[in-house]
């Protein structure tokens, strides 16, 4: 994790006070804090001028927002068509067993969040796992385990 985090006000300042910037603001806050806290959600609503209900609907509709803190490392197993055919499903199951966490959830020690994605656009190397910003191509259960041990 980064040592310093930006102040919420600095993020709000990036966008004019218009409803159309709701999603961009949520994304920036999500990127900075890895989740959207109730306080931040309220501040964003005030800034762009939308009711909390709309922000709530948006934050729960789109998959990239999280209303709970996420883990230090994000493991995203690709379950796009190609990765599915090449055994991506078995990789998620292996992660679920090894990390003792269900997909879409975070380990109790907040070390890992396990998630699935639908195609990261590296299908030629399927199955693909993204570990934070890095791609692991042609992944297998052993190669994935080795990579996770290094973290």
């Amino acid at each position, binding site marked *: 994790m980064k040592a310093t985090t930006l102040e919420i006000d600095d993020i709000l300042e990036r966008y004019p006070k*218009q*409803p*159309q*910037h*709701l*999603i*961009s603001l*949520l*994304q920036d806050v999500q990127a900075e804090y890895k989740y959207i806290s109730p306080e931040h959600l309220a501040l964003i609503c005030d800034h*762009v001028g*939308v009711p909390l209900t*709309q922000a709530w*609907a*948006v934050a729960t*509709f*789109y*998959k*990239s*927002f999280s209303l709970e803190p996420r883990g230090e490392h994000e493991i995203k197993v690709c*379950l*796009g*068509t*190609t*990765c*599915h*055919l*090449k*055994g991506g499903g*078995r990789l998620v*199951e*292996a992660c679920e*067993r090894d990390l003792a966490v269900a997909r879409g959830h975070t380990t109790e020690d907040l070390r890992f969040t396990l998630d699935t*994605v*639908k*195609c*990261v*656009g*590296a*299908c*030629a*190397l*399927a199955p*693909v796992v993204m570990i934070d*910003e890095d*791609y*692991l*191509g*042609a992944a*297998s*259960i*052993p190669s994935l385990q080795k990579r996770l041990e290094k973290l």
Partner: protein
Amino acid sequence: MERIKSAAQLAGLQKKLLKAQDPKRPVVRVCLGPGCLAQGAAMVSQAFKSTIKAKKLRAKVQPLIKETGCHGFCSQGTLVSLSPADLFYVRVKPEDVEEIVEASLVKGQVVERLLYSDNGARYKSAAEIPFYKMQQKIILKNVGIIDPLKIDDALMAGAYQSFAKALTQMSPEDIINTVSLSGLRGRGGGGFPTGRKWRRAADIARENPGPVYIIGNGEEGDPGAFMDRAIMEGDPHAVLEGMIIGAYALGANKGFLYVRHEYPIAIRHLSIAIEQARSLGLLGQNILGTGFDFDLQINRGAGAYVCGEETAIIASLEGRVGEPITRPPYPAQQGLWNRPTIINNVETWANVPHIIDKGAKWYTDLGVPYSTGTKIFSLVGKVKNSGLVEVPMGVTLGRIVEEIGGGVPGQERFKAVQTGGPSGGIIPYEFKDLPPADMKPARVGLSAPVPISELKKLPVDFDSMAQTGSIMGGGGMIVMDNRDCVVDVARYFLRFLQEESCGKCLPCRLGLKGMQEFLDKFSRGQGSVEDIDELKSLAQAVGDGSLCGLGGTAPNPVLTSIRYFRDEYLAHIKDHKCPAGVCKDLIIYRVDPKTCNGCTLCVRNCPQDCISGRKKKPHTINNAACIRCGACMDVCPVGAVIVE
């Protein structure tokens, strides 16, 4: 950088840049596309930089390292190409870099072991490799060649020439006419004629003056497709140029690029490209001194496949939940903030500069009568050469899969090809011409159905693909072999769509789940033959009743798989067997005692501790405890674990 104020100045800048370039200077192009990144391309590029620095190469050979977009041949990554020597190295690892620098850059020799070889032949240059030889790169021409972060590089490759021509020599009407005559059809999946869409919007905008918006659809939600990603990452200026030309033709002053957030590199490259275009005055006010103002903004998708749908993108751009609404009114009539809005896929936009540059006639000469131009496909799955393939429309499927793709490794033929993602279908190798009653009329109704004798000969164009019950879609082409189960694939798509459906309308929200319940039964070996017909009837209801294209096309994978693979369904239901060995409830894992060398790797990796056997002795799996996770199969060094 100085703002460019006229077309002449732009041409001057390009000339100046080309002149300043030293054609003899060695250029090392390292592919930093998604496939190569997944194979460690970033480290290869780093190695080049540090090796060259460490070696302090004499000024004469001071090479230029270019980090480029996808070269196309992703399965061979990391790819490195050298010019002017015209060498093409595959599977380059960081440890190979020293040798490449020493041999090829300093001594001018070839590192034989890094060349691509196939069937005993070695290929020095990319152009000779069959995978590339049969392609015709127009949209991808600069992808993998230029440095996408340098506008100078794009300008030298001819970027913004069409833009200058359009703005200074053509009227908006001329542009719309040219695009109409070119026959360009939308690359986002629907295949709607772009010229017709633009004309409609232009007419509406004329009748009620006010702002007009344009949107570049870079959501690329279809799993298994990455052509749009390659364009956005590898040649972002091509998308901008197309959009500026379109904006000028349509009288739009504001454009949006909607890019999915899973593509952070595409977002970065496009943002940089926009900044560069702005500072050169190619975006902004009074562009090229013509009085035309236009600016572009990037919006990131937030993780919703349905936000590739036009009305959902609009909702998302307005800061709302991405729920589609009924059309009409079409976005061209009432789109963003109720104003006429034109949405095109980014590949569609990237076609526009070429049409303006070389003319409608040149474009229609590519491809076939009602599907003109080239199309990029992402050829993936069980195929030897996977990657991006750009071919003229109408090339046969056999040519793409077997000649360019090299067929299925180790198997004589492929089993099926899945095209069009979750909206498309699964078409079998044995595809024969359909009885006329089964033929779906082509979507736009332009060309008459042509009988086709086998799938290999199926011309890949919008209308021929539609006849099969599938669609061409965005360009994903997933090759399946006989280890892939169609019931499983149909189930997979339904699960995918359930997670992605917005949930607004009942046929989609409930129907996808309902269809999956049927397929779940089949995959467990349950259900009856009548259930297959019931499923077809439900699929029809979902297709007819759904609000948007997501639910509307969701039955396609199910219906095509039933139509072409009924026997495979029956094998599940009647014989309780999954012929491909995929459906977990119908298979068992077994260790082949002849192959097993007793290395105990599987024993140590089995999460259920259900494999027994002593060192150096064949092992056995206790099937009662086995959860069919496949861990043993993955670790077995000799391939002794088999599925039955």
